[in-house]
């Protein structure tokens, strides 16, 4: 039985696409057949972050409109086995994303392609694209930054998950929610300039799946088109790796919540 996971947030620019790319890659690395779908119709970006932008021929909307088959549209990742990408279209016609269309593609991915995890990268906002991305979800990664507008938007999304998802409408078990706190800067939180992990947890009151530190490695990896989880020497890469393991049931302590310890010389001369 496949699990559908939406990566959502309400607010834009908080790290949904970064998280989708690394999360899907991590699941595939661990042996699960995984597909990641870009729901951001009109603004496709997942292909760039995954480094497959030059291999896009057909897209999600083409498949919904029966202009291409899933076989033609799915892009097989070159680095990681078991990983596939379904790119968004660049059409401006957002109405193309219909409930029936999305449902048909999802069930084909589950049944004919035997995917174990379907990761849906949601667009920002609470409009059609975002609603479609979360409608069929079994679980949700709610990506939040430690900042007022992001926390408020996440709370709104939690409200939508519990009232407008398919699971809510059919009175099934609710969508399982996970908090991903991204772009966290422990030094600023300790100084009292930024909401702490604890603050955000107190307000949103959902289980914490992982804390991803603010990291220059994220920009470097998106420059190269390599999901940051594949950079095993980076703090953000390790954070995503832990997050995937925790999702799969491992009980790991949260790293990157404390200020990194600096050596004596580094402390004297700064840097790091």
């Amino acid at each position, binding site marked *: 039985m496949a699990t559908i996971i939406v990566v959502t947030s309400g607010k834009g620019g908080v790290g949904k696409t970064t998280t989708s790319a690394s999360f899907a890659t991590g699941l595939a690395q661990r042996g699960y057949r995984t597909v990641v779908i870009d729901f951001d119709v009109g603004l496709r970006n997942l292909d760039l972050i995954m480094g497959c932008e030059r291999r896009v021929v057909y897209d999600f909307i083409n498949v919904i409109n029966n202009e291409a088959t899933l076989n033609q549209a799915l892009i097989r990742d070159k680095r990681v086995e078991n990983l596939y990408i379904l790119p968004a279209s660049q059409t401006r016609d957002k109405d193309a994303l219909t409930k029936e269309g999305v449902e048909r593609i999802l069930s084909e991915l589950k049944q004919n392609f035997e995917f174990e995890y379907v990761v849906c990268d949601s667009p920002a906002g609470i409009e059609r694209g975002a609603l479609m991305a979360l409608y069929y979800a079994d679980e949700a990664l709610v990506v939040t930054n430690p900042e007022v507008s992001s926390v408020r938007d996440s709370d709104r999304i939690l*409200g939508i998950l519990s009232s*407008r998802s398919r699971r809510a409408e059919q009175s099934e078990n609710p969508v399982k929610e996970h908090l991903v706190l991204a772009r966290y800067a422990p030094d600023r939180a300790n100084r009292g300039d*930024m*909401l*702490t992990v604890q*603050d955000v947890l107190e*307000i949103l009151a959902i289980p914490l799946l992982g804390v991803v530190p603010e990291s220059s490695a994220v920009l470097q990896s998106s420059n190269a088109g390599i999901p940051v989880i594949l950079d095993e020497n980076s703090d953000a890469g390790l954070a995503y790796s832990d997050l995937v393991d925790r999702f799969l049931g491992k009980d790991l302590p949260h790293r990157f919540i404390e200020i990194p310890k600096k050596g004596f010389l580094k402390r004297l001369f700064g840097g790091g």
Partner: protein
Amino acid sequence: MGLFDYFRSSPSRSAALAKERLQIIVAHERGSRRSSPDYLPALKKELLEVVRRYVPIDQSHVKVHLDREGGYEILELNITLPDEEQRQFQPR
């Protein structure tokens, strides 16, 4: 932000203020998402009276549920009637 702020040693209250404001707004917005209008209890009571003219039921057999979705609201009524043999029709 003056030079003073930059060099001060005491922790800033900036995040504490953010947290306070968030707690208030989030509680408010959750309230308006979940709260039900104040006519619901009266509606439920009157419904109970009407149905009782025909079938003997009690409070627990009437479920009234209000859902908000985007711009509109759905009022869901669920009235469970008792089994045939338990129905003793008592016109009033």
